[in-house]
């Protein structure tokens, strides 16, 4: 196409241009579309009202996740257990009705493949490297861990993709976030991305697509890379990308919707060719030393409010920006903590292990490794593990992880988004604190008045055992 060296993002972008308009926007083809029950009903309704059809039903996959209770869904006789919340039930019913009506494959609540869309997509091989992937959910950035250009869209765009299989987009600026060196003991992918949120702040990535590079990123497993890319949106970037490599190919190979036979070889050759060219430049480069990253935890109500677990709660005056000082004051007030408090002195009453950020098998293994032979502290009232999909749950049970969690005093649940955003019955009570492996510590995110501290799965397990935010390295 052009001899100019290009970045991974630019190559995927160029390969998906249907046409470019005079004003610089491009009609971009969308290879994969995931829909869930929350952001799709109004899109299907709009199609129905205007008499429009779905252009390529085979490129959309529907999976309910946000509203589903994580308690049993079938009774002893295999009959569906009704969902208590009528609004949740209505939204789930709408998806169950809309998907077949428009010819879209639905993975239903009773299917073992059901789970959080961002876990299911990669797991089924539906999400592929080099593909453009969208979903009406900001954590769609997650799939960038495979080297896909993946981003969240609103409901009008869901309708646009259903009707046209394209989106009208303006090319983003490019940013490289390079993490050089090796991660220390107890430091996971989640700590890396929390650290990046602290460096870039909540809006530092706005207008950019970020490519995460460097040896610390390369060394991560695919699941770790999905965790990193998942939270690109938490520093404002619409999409995150990690170049596909042999680990990626090994992860994708053999999955139900992955390419097979001769197409597999052609796909690997194409995916390999997508790597950023030597000499390609990014609009911005941020370099982070892996050795500077500690097990991390958030103290406030924005993912940028992050500190090493060894730190203390900051004083609002310590921030230069007056509006940040004000925000910090409000955050501390909401969180019920005081400047100068050691983070490891903060007691938690709840622990949530789950979400599209941290509910894959490696996340559960990391948490179980800390919990093995231990029990949750007496002050931890509620501790739950919500696997990212039925298949993750099955795998964990085959490895005996469910026993470790149950023995430690955790509840072992059915897959879904759960307490990450509290749209289903899993909520953190007002005024209580939760060590959570999810992605957002916003005001009221885990329930009205709930106080969230974002952590890695191992750190969540450490918090459960000690009853406080804890440095997992001290539990080894």
């Amino acid at each position, binding site marked *: 196409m052009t001899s100019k060296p290009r970045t991974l993002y630019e190559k995927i972008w160029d390969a998906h241009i249907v046409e470019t308009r005079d004003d610089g926007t491009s009609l971009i083809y969308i290879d994969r579309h995931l829909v869930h029950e929350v952001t799709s009903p109004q899109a299907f309704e*709009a199609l129905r009202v205007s008499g429009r059809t779905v252009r390529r039903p085979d490129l959309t996959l529907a999976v309910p996740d946000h509203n589903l209770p994580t308690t049993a869904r079938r009774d002893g006789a295999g009959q569906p257990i009704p969902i208590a919340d009528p609004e949740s039930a209505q939204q789930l019913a709408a998806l169950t009705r809309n998907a077949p009506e428009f010819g879209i494959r639905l993975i239903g609540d009773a299917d073992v493949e059901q789970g959080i869309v961002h876990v299911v997509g990669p797991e089924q091989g539906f999400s592929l490297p080099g593909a453009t992937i969208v979903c009406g959910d900001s954590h769609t950035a997650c799939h960038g861990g495979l080297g896909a250009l993946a981003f969240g869209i609103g409901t009008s765009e869901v309708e646009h993709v259903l009707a046209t299989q394209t989106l009208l987009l303006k090319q983003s600026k490019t940013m490289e976030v390079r993490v050089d060196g090796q991660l220390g003991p107890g430091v996971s992918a989640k700590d890396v991305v929390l650290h990046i949120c602290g460096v870039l702040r909540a809006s530092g990535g706005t207008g950019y697509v970020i490519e995460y590079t460097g040896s610390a990123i390369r060394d991560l497993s695919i699941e770790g890379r999905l965790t990193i890319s998942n939270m690109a949106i938490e520093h404002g970037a619409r999409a995150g990308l990690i170049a596909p490599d042999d680990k990626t190919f090994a992860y994708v190979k053999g999955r139900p*919707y992955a390419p097979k036979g001769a*197409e597999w070889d052609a796909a690997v050759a194409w995916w390999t060719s997508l790597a950023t060219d030597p000499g390609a430049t990014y609009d911005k480069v941020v370099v982070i030393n892996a050795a500077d990253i500690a097990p991390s935890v958030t103290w406030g109500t924005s993912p940028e409010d992050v500190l090493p677990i060894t730190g203390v709660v900051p004083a609002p005056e310590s921030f230069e920006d007056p509006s940040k000082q004000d925000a910090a004051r409000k955050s501390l007030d909401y969180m019920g903590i005081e400047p100068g408090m050691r983070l490891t002195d903060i007691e938690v009453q709840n622990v949530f292990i789950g979400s599209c950020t941290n509910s894959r098998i490696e996340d559960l293994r990391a948490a179980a490794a800390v919990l093995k032979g231990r029990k949750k502290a007496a002050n931890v009232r509620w501790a739950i593990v919500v696997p990212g999909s039925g298949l993750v749950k099955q795998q964990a049970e085959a490895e005996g992880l469910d026993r470790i969690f149950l023995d430690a005093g955790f509840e072992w649940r059915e897959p879904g988004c759960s307490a990450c955003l509290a749209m289903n019955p899993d909520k953190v009570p007002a005024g209580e604190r939760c060590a959570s492996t999810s992605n957002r510590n916003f005001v009221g995110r885990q329930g009205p008045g709930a106080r969230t501290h974002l952590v890695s799965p191992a750190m969540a397990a450490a918090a459960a055992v000690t009853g406080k935010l804890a440095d997992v390295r001290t539990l080894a």
Partner: protein
Amino acid sequence: MEALREVSGRAIPFGRKNVDTDVIIPAHWLKTITRDGLGRGAFEALRSDPDNLFDSAEFKGSPILIAGDNFGCGSSREHAAWALLDLGITAVIAPSFSDIFSGNAFKNGILTVVLPQEAIDRLMDVAQTDPVSIDLESQTVTTPFQDRFTFEIDPFRKHCLLNGLDEVGLTLARGEAIAAYENKSKGETPWLAHGTGEAA
């Protein structure tokens, strides 16, 4: 979508930074299957304070919201745009917006105006007592005190907003170009064309 040429009236001097979509419309309001009625849940936590700006005699029903940096960050929920519309807000002025929110706002006929912080500070002052006017054609924000701030807007978005155009309809008219792309990519990256169609 209704055409939008100008928005004039009282502007809510909100001014907060990093207003996330959970603040604009909390998750428990997302369980609707229609676009209507979300104004009741808009800024719910803030509006539990009886002295809040949104429900004050002075600002209730105002068509313009003035906010701080990174407005609309967080989730992709379009409900945030629907909630603002239902409150009567058709324009938001801020130093920056999250990408997803500004796209959602545009698709619902809400104008997002990006102005530097100095201009925001001035408008916040004016808004305490006087109205603000936004003219899309000339891309200006003016006040009764001869303030005049110009803003940038994507030409395509401007065209669509001024004429109330439906983006899906516009793209459907490009069906041949889309089909041509599909044919080409079927040759180059055939595995991407399969989707769920050929699953085991």
